[in-house]
């Protein structure tokens, strides 16, 4: 098989590098391609933000391994290849009354990418991360071995691969359970919080809601620090729908994707615009109940294809950290103050309560609060993020690797106690000699 060379980046378009790309069409073709390559990395749909799916020498585009293999109508168990897009699963199974147990904020991700990042959704507090719903995965180790990994078989490789950022090998197939739904509608309640304390109090008393997330105005300061709109939601049962919708509870209203036509110039993102946008957004979130269709609820940004171009040519970085529960309030306060003081904010900042940690050695979630924001990749912002790292470390938190493009190796180690075991396993199976990405090189994973 022949590679082609193409400039690649993550969703943040920072960094961009020319990569040699292979596109195997079957698991067998992949198996034959790997051994002579030296070090390579799997790439799904490139929705990680930074450099996790880039390797200039050898990047393997997994999207042609995209076959559904089996589905059990009784248990909801789905077996598929790792390059299947989440959007394809949703299109195929929502009309039949099934949804994924965990979804990130975009449907344009592959199952392999969801596993390698052990993604979490707005239901993490009650449902855990995606890999906690995984029954098994098949891992191509690049040395001739393809191993079935689960909690029962090759459990150590399973724990390393779930959240392992592609550094344990190529995930070729996986099995997980879908979750039954009665309708393609969400019952949503919006609550406003005037400051951080109020926002956290809302989260703490809302555990019974399946989904919860807050949009936080990251430029609000002083008494308003942490001002946010908290969105709580459940899947709507069919009998909560009006007569017209109840006739076809699983039908989804069509959405016309729009594209951002060109890279917006840098000034579009001046702090004035961001401030105005945040205030407007906060004002738009009217408190109260509403019935919202499934797609706009889970994937508000997918309606705008290529929205990452809003940040212009230089690209942007997303910063997502989580702080342990006991430290959350103090740590968040310091983070938000530092961001508001720098005045270079993010269109949307997201705050979310997380539940128990996952078994994955490098999985991101831990019980506490996670904060996520976007920043244009300017030198000033990158310096700000270094200051945020120090605050996160002070409070015993960690940074989400799938969003990262700029963390340093020592900072990483502070947040991930499973790292030593992860490195040991990589060495033990020779995986460090066969799989690497710009992210793993930067962070010495």
């Amino acid at each position: 098989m022949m590679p082609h060379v193409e400039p690649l980046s993550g969703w943040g378009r920072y960094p961009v590098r020319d990569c040699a790309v292979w596109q195997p069409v079957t698991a067998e073709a992949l198996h034959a391609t790997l051994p002579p390559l030296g070090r390579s990395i799997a790439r799904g749909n490139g929705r990680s933000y930074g450099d996790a799916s880039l390797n200039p020498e050898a990047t393997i585009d997994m999207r042609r391994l995209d076959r559904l293999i089996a589905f059990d109508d009784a248990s909801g168990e789905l077996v598929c290849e790792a390059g299947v897009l989440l959007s394809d699963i949703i299109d195929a199974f929502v009309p039949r009354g099934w949804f994924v147990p965990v979804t990130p904020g975009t449907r344009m991700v592959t199952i392999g990418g969801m596993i390698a990042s052990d993604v979490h959704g707005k239901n993490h507090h009650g449902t855990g991360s995606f890999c906690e719903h995984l029954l098994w995965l098949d891992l191509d180790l690049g040395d001739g071995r393809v191993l079935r990994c689960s909690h029962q078989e090759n459990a150590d490789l399973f724990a390393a691969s779930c959240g392992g950022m592609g550094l344990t090998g190529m995930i070729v197939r996986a099995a997980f359970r879908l979750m039954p739904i009665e309708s393609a509608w969400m019952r949503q309640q919006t609550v406003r919080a005037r400051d951080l304390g109020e926002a956290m109090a809302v989260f703490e008393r809302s555990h019974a809601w399946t989904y919860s997330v807050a949009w936080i105005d990251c430029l609000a300061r002083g008494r308003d620090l942490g001002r946010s709109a908290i969105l709580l939601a459940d899947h709507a049962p069919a009998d909560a729908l009006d007569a017209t919708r109840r006739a076809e509870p699983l039908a989804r209203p069509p959405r016309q994707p729009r594209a951002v036509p060109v890279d917006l110039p840098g000034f579009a993102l001046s702090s004035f615009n961001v401030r105005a946008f945040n205030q407007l957004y906060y004002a738009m979130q009217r408190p109260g109940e509403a019935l919202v269709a499934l797609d706009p609820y889970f994937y508000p940004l997918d309606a705008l294809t290529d929205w990452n171009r809003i940040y212009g040519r230089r690209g942007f970085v997303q910063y997502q950290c989580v702080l342990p529960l006991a430290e959350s309030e103090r740590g968040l306060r310091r983070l938000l103050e530092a961001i508001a003081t720098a005045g270079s904010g993010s269109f949307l900042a997201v705050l979310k309560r997380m539940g128990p940690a996952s078994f994955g050695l490098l999985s991101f979630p831990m019980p506490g609060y996670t904060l996520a924001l976007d920043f244009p990749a300017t030198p000033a912002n990158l310096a700000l993020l270094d200051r945020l790292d120090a605050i996160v470390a002070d409070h015993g938190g960690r940074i989400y690797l799938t969003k990262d493009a700029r963390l340093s190796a020592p900072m990483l180690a502070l947040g991930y106690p499973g790292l030593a075991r992860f490195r040991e396993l990589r060495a033990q199976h020779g995986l460090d000699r066969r799989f690497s990405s710009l992210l793993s090189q930067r962070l010495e994973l």
Partner: protein
Amino acid sequence: MIASPVLILGARSDIGKALARGYAAQGCEVILAARNDIAADATDLALRTGVQARAVLFDVTDGEPDRFFEGLGAIPGTVVMVAGLLGDQAESAAVDAAAQQVMDSNYNGPARYLLAAARRMAGVPGGCIIGISSVAGERGRASNFVYGSAKAGFTAFLSGLRNAHARAGLHVMTVKPGFVRTQMTAGLKLPPAVTAEPGQVADAIIRAHRARRDVIYTLGRWRPIMAIIRAIPESVFKKLSL
């Protein structure tokens, strides 16, 4: 209307796979024909869409088109010829067997298979035959004229087949893709502005099929490009390196 089942000849190709998904999504029964076993793709289609899908073996150069259609167990409503072989021009120029393989895979084989299909499809309501040719067939170029001339022959064949069956109601559509990002072009540097994804090509084909178009270019912007290339006088053209 799209007549089922839809038979895709060369279903392991990226364009063939995208077509199969597109037709299945419209609710059409599909039959996937390829040199290798692609039962997994048939299973995938059935799981995605709930339509019936099965896989059969097919070699476009086997010289046995009638036996293939006899073994099919159904008369297709739609046949799409996707199989083709770009080959290597230098190799074709140097080695007779290589040239023959390219000619057989892009002209002899596809034309004979579609003749055999047409013999059976007369009277199928809404019947349609679609052939994937190429812009490479519009003018012979030093870099790929063995492939290009076979596609030129195939284009002429499709136009004749359309003419022969137009009155009887069997529709024939010619598809001329420009560059498409597929296994055929893997490793080549393609200009993004005139390169299509397989899914785009499949969508365009299915739309044109519904509209009963005769000849389409994918992407559409190849039509004016090829008009210019055809207009260059031969005395100039022969000195160009395109």
